[in-house]
């Protein structure tokens, strides 16, 4: 099958003795959409913090296409190809949608290489692709802060595509969305499937069914189970840990 894009190897962090993530190992293959499930406090967001460099791990390794990116600074991890979407949508509110995407599509990150006004052909092409993919062509001149909740989320997704991220971490991308918006997000993720590798934290099972190629379940910071939706739903350990011993009524 395809090569591993993101490899977590015994990853762990402890906050003054409390192990939020504990010896977590997982391999996500290139082009896969992996959904990470787990009850509140299972360590899903912390795991994303460890991958993206927001929190420094105390054990284990993170590898991106074989390259060790453990505990690099956030912008170096981002430059290596990891994009992250936050639970609370985070965009540049006082800039226009166009400028948000221009900033995201800029190829070279240093100050001195950005003392220029013109966009390169490469950047312009990527910009056009992103605008088409996320469907914001009608809103380019609006302030990003004036977008609706759904549009904000899509803009942020577009920025991750524009940034050239190969592995994208999505933390509850449909939180607070209407049914219609959720479905549009699902189709957006499905168009990105293949060209991007995605790790998604999500609770909305309808949405998970729509996008997931494989599910990993986390419990108390540890890897609990992994497999297709059907096999996870049938898994006894998952039922006990995540759904509660009584299951869903």
């Amino acid at each position, binding site marked *: 099958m395809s090569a591993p894009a993101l490899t977590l190897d015994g990853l762990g962090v402890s906050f003054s003795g409390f192990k939020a993530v504990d010896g977590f190992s997982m391999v996500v293959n290139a082009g896969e959409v992996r959904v990470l499930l787990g009850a509140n406090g299972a360590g899903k967001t912390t795991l994303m913090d460890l991958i993206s460099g927001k929190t420094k791990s105390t054990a284990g390794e993170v590898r991106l296409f074989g390259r060790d990116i453990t505990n690099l600074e956030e912008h170096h991890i981002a430059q290596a190809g990891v994009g992250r979407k936050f639970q609370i949508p985070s965009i*540049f509110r006082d800039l226009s949608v166009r400028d948000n995407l*221009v*900033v995201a599509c800029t190829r070279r990150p240093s100050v001195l290489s*950005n003392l220029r*006004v013109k966009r390169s052909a490469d950047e312009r092409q990527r910009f056009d692709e992103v605008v088409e993919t996320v469907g914001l062509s009608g809103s380019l001149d609006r302030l990003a802060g004036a977008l609706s909740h759904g549009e904000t989320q899509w803009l942020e997704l577009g920025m991750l595509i524009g*940034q050239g991220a190969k592995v994208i971490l999505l933390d509850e991308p449909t939180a607070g969305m209407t049914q219609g918006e959720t479905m549009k997000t699902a189709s957006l993720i499905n168009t990105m499937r293949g060209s991007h590798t995605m790790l998604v934290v999500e609770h909305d099972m309808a949405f998970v069914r729509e996008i997931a190629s494989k599910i990993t379940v986390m419990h108390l910071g540890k890897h609990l189970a992994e497999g297709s939706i059907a096999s996870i739903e049938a898994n006894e350990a998952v039922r006990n840990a995540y759904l509660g011993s009584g299951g869903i009524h």
Partner: protein
Amino acid sequence: MNLSFHQRWELFAYAAFVVAILLLPLVADAFWLNRFAKYLVFGMLGIAVALSWGYAGILNLGQGLFFGVGAYMISMSLKLQSPTSQLPGAQTPIPDFMLWNAEPDAMKDLCCITDGSWLWIPFQYQGFGIAMAVLVPALIAFLIGYAIFRLRVSGVFISIITLALVLLVRLVIIEFQPVTNGFNGLTDLGWLTLGGVEFDPYLVSTYYIVAIGTILVLLLTRLLVAARAGLILQATRDDANRARYLGYNVAAYQVFFFTVSGLIAGIAGMLYVIASEFASPTFLDLAFSVSMVVWAAVGGRSSLLGACIGAILINTVQATASESEMLGEAWKAIVGLMFVLAVLYLPRGLAGLARDLLDRLREQVPTRRGALPTPQRSE
């Protein structure tokens, strides 16, 4: 080139401003011209504040640090060129205050007349003083910026640190009286001399040095924020984390623009000395640094030209009001009122007001060009 409605008006505003300050000598006498040169310098400070506060979101309450250091650097050179420093029988020019402070048997030479007086030796070359006035403030800004932004200090803490630093440097200058003349500052300065020409502060040519300096700073800074780096800087202001996860080293952008802002303030300090013939620890007073922020707030902190005009306007009003007998001491209240009104009703300052008025104008006359009948040529 296709310019939007706002871009065209902005271009017009910049052009009008440049033409106005270049033509000012036609209408102003020597006294007002000299005064206006100082206001242009304050305009540069407005630009420096707008760059760091408006564009980078860094509220620096110690901009006077860079202004003061720039002023002191050039003053040391100009002081040595002053007739008051030429001592009969001495090997080198010696500032008069050093002589007054020196031990009676001290050697009358810059190397050793007082402790630390050797620091003045290279300033005998005016070029050195000019270079230091530009480089030292920028270097200090770089070091401060590097220390605080690498540690991700943000928001009000930056203001507190910069505020403390400007007061610290002020104390150092006052304490090292044998080298700096303490509270009294450096006075009785000589004139700037370029290519054998002396620049009397009341000459039109001196005004033009300041005016052209201001125009260059204004236009270059405008270009800088129009560049991609300026856009990325604004992005870091809106959401530093987002910028970081897009792959930008946020601290590098902050340090770079903080340094540019310090550099501009340093140049402003140098030009101020050329126009006013003194440097004093009052340049590092907290009140002065806070005034700069007020100018930028009234003019519009997110507009370089707005902040520049705000500074010039407030200082003109302040000077006129403080000299009017009728108003007397009320001028302070007038300036305070302007600030309060700007904060309450004009959060984007005069520049924001101008923009809103233009927008309204455009709505009322939507297609003026199209509505006008084509003029017929009569035979």
